[in-house]
């Protein structure tokens, strides 16, 4: 969740803190936007960073009576977070005029995964309650954008960002698992790539007319294209049915596994832990289809509801119900509704005759 998605009951900075991070000792660290790709070329030495932040209109987060007490009541900190490195801490940034600055060293042997650096404006101590203003020590009042230092290649990147579709012979050695009984089928999906994105295969040995039709990229309206669209639709429905089934089954199995573990009965925790173990592509599938799985839910609540239903007392029943409706969930969720794809085809065929 982004900070902007959270409703704060107190005044926060209208604009972001402007954060600048420069490496003092290594030139040309590979960087895309605010992300440093350390894993690509691990430096021989530790990474020494010089960090500065500019906080716009800092006094606006304080009430009228406190506006002249900015340095007494506000701190600007560098927050260092890295879950994979089992580390969270803050470093006070030193004020010089309107600029806050600090230094930080990333020792190359100390970090794993991604290290996130950001700057936060924080209330320094408890103060009297005033409506609309923060009063509790530690309250966050403003944020910068986040800088990431990737010490390992992100797992989702290993999987690629989209699903590959390739034409292969189902009799080839590459797809040996299809050779014996399925070599004449039209399409297949390989889900056994671990954390990697599944691959979709179309059979190179299919009927040549069918292949010509499926390879046709035309967008104009014609009976031929309507037929092709229906074929695409049928294939896509099959594939998404399998993807959602696999993702939700895996998630349910992980939940059940964690539930069995000794002394772990906190549903919120179980749902989060199982979620963390799920490969990124499965998380994305469930994020994208949660509102289709639980259509009675508000879109933004759907994923949380799905998680708690799968951890709840009636989770087995809920899960079976989802599987029972999975084909319909997919049909409803398709960009072009199934009913339309089939009807368009029927109309064009009947017109032809």
């Amino acid at each position, binding site marked *: 969740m982004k900070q902007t998605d959270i409703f704060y009951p107190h005044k926060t900075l209208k604009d972001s803190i402007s954060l600048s991070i420069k490496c003092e000792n290594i030139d040309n660290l590979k960087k895309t936007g605010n992300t440093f790709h350390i894993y690509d070329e691990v430096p021989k030495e530790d990474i020494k960073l010089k960090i500065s932040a500019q906080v716009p209109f800092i006094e606006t987060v304080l009430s009228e009576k406190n506006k002249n007490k900015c340095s007494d009541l506000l701190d600007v900190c560098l927050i*260092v977070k890295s879950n994979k490195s089992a580390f969270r801490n803050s470093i006070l940034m030193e004020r010089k005029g309107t600029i806050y600055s600090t230094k930080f060293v990333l020792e190359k042997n100390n970090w794993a995964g991604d290290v996130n650096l950001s700057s*936060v404006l924080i209330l320094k101590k408890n103060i009297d309650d005033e409506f609309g203003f923060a009063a509790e020590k530690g309250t966050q009042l403003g944020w910068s954008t986040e800088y990431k230092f990737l010490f390992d290649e992100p797992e989702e990147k290993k999987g690629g960002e989209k699903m590959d579709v390739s034409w292969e012979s189902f009799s080839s050695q590459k797809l040996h698992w299809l050779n014996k009984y399925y070599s004449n089928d039209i399409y297949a999906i390989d889900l056994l790539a*671990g954390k990697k994105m599944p691959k979709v295969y179309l059979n190179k040995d299919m009927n040549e007319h069918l292949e010509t039709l499926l390879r046709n990229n035309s967008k104009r309206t014609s009976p031929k294209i309507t037929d092709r669209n229906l074929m695409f639709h049928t294939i896509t429905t099959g594939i998404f049915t399998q993807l959602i089934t696999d993702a939700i089954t895996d998630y349910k199995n992980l939940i059940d*596994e964690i539930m069995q573990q*000794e*002394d772990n009965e*906190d549903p919120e925790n179980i749902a989060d832990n199982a979620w*963390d173990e799920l490969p990124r592509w499965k998380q994305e599938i469930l994020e994208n289809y949660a509102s289709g799985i639980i259509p009675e839910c508000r879109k933004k609540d759907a994923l949380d509801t799905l998680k708690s239903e799968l951890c709840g007392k009636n989770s087995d029943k809920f899960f079976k119900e989802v599987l029972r409706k999975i084909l319909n969930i997919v049909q409803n969720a398709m960009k072009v509704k199934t009913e339309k794809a089939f009807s368009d085809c029927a109309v064009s065929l009947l017109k032809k005759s």
Partner: protein
Amino acid sequence: MKKFAEKLNKEDLIDFIEGKKDFETINLEMEDGEKNAIKLSDSLKVLSESAKNFEDNFIKGAAKGSIARSDSDLAPLVYETFKDLPRRELLDVRFWQWISLNHFESYIWIRWWAAKNAANRKSWPLKNSGEKIDQLRKKNKDDNEIWSTVASRFLGGSSMKSLTSRQAISRLFWPYKILGNQELTNLCFEKQDIAVAVFERQYGLHQEAARSFIKNISIKHPSLEKKNIQYEAKKLNRYFATLATEYLDQEDIKRLIFE
């Protein structure tokens, strides 16, 4: 000291136990290599002996409570043994998988499988790799594969929580490292719910938060009921939606717990 070249998954675990496959390993790079290697080897002997004592006590009929409490005895030894390894290696589940399967396999089977219930206790020791595999991977009534939770105790997972709370050996190392002393470690493992509540949440990675929660939970709720521990942990989590966890010290967090 080594780690697996690739992270093991459940199927690999089966292959390892069957002894079917040689898994490629990587030697860990240590500063001051030879000197540290000798020190590490000595500490590992002490730790292995303690794990062996644990196994002997179990066979002699140690009660379930004392099995769980052994965590607080072993945690400082695990910490002492591995503390000088580069931090990056200690964050790498491939190292914990290697050490678990090569040095602590019996300990993990007993702690996380045999001690679980009377039937498992009766079946221990499992006679061969076949029996172990049968326990690791079972079929449910719908003929789906169900994996025993002991698999995740060997393998850990990809999340931070699996390192601090689930993998059988790293879950002893990291809490001790974060808490920094025996007294807090005893309190942490006195009731497993405390360890789970703190080290399966992100604020558990902030030393001050973890220490304060563990110090104060038993003061606020002396009977340490699971529901109270979970409630307090959740309450603290909610505070941290608007408060910067990393900025607060132990006293600040104590105040939030007692609020």
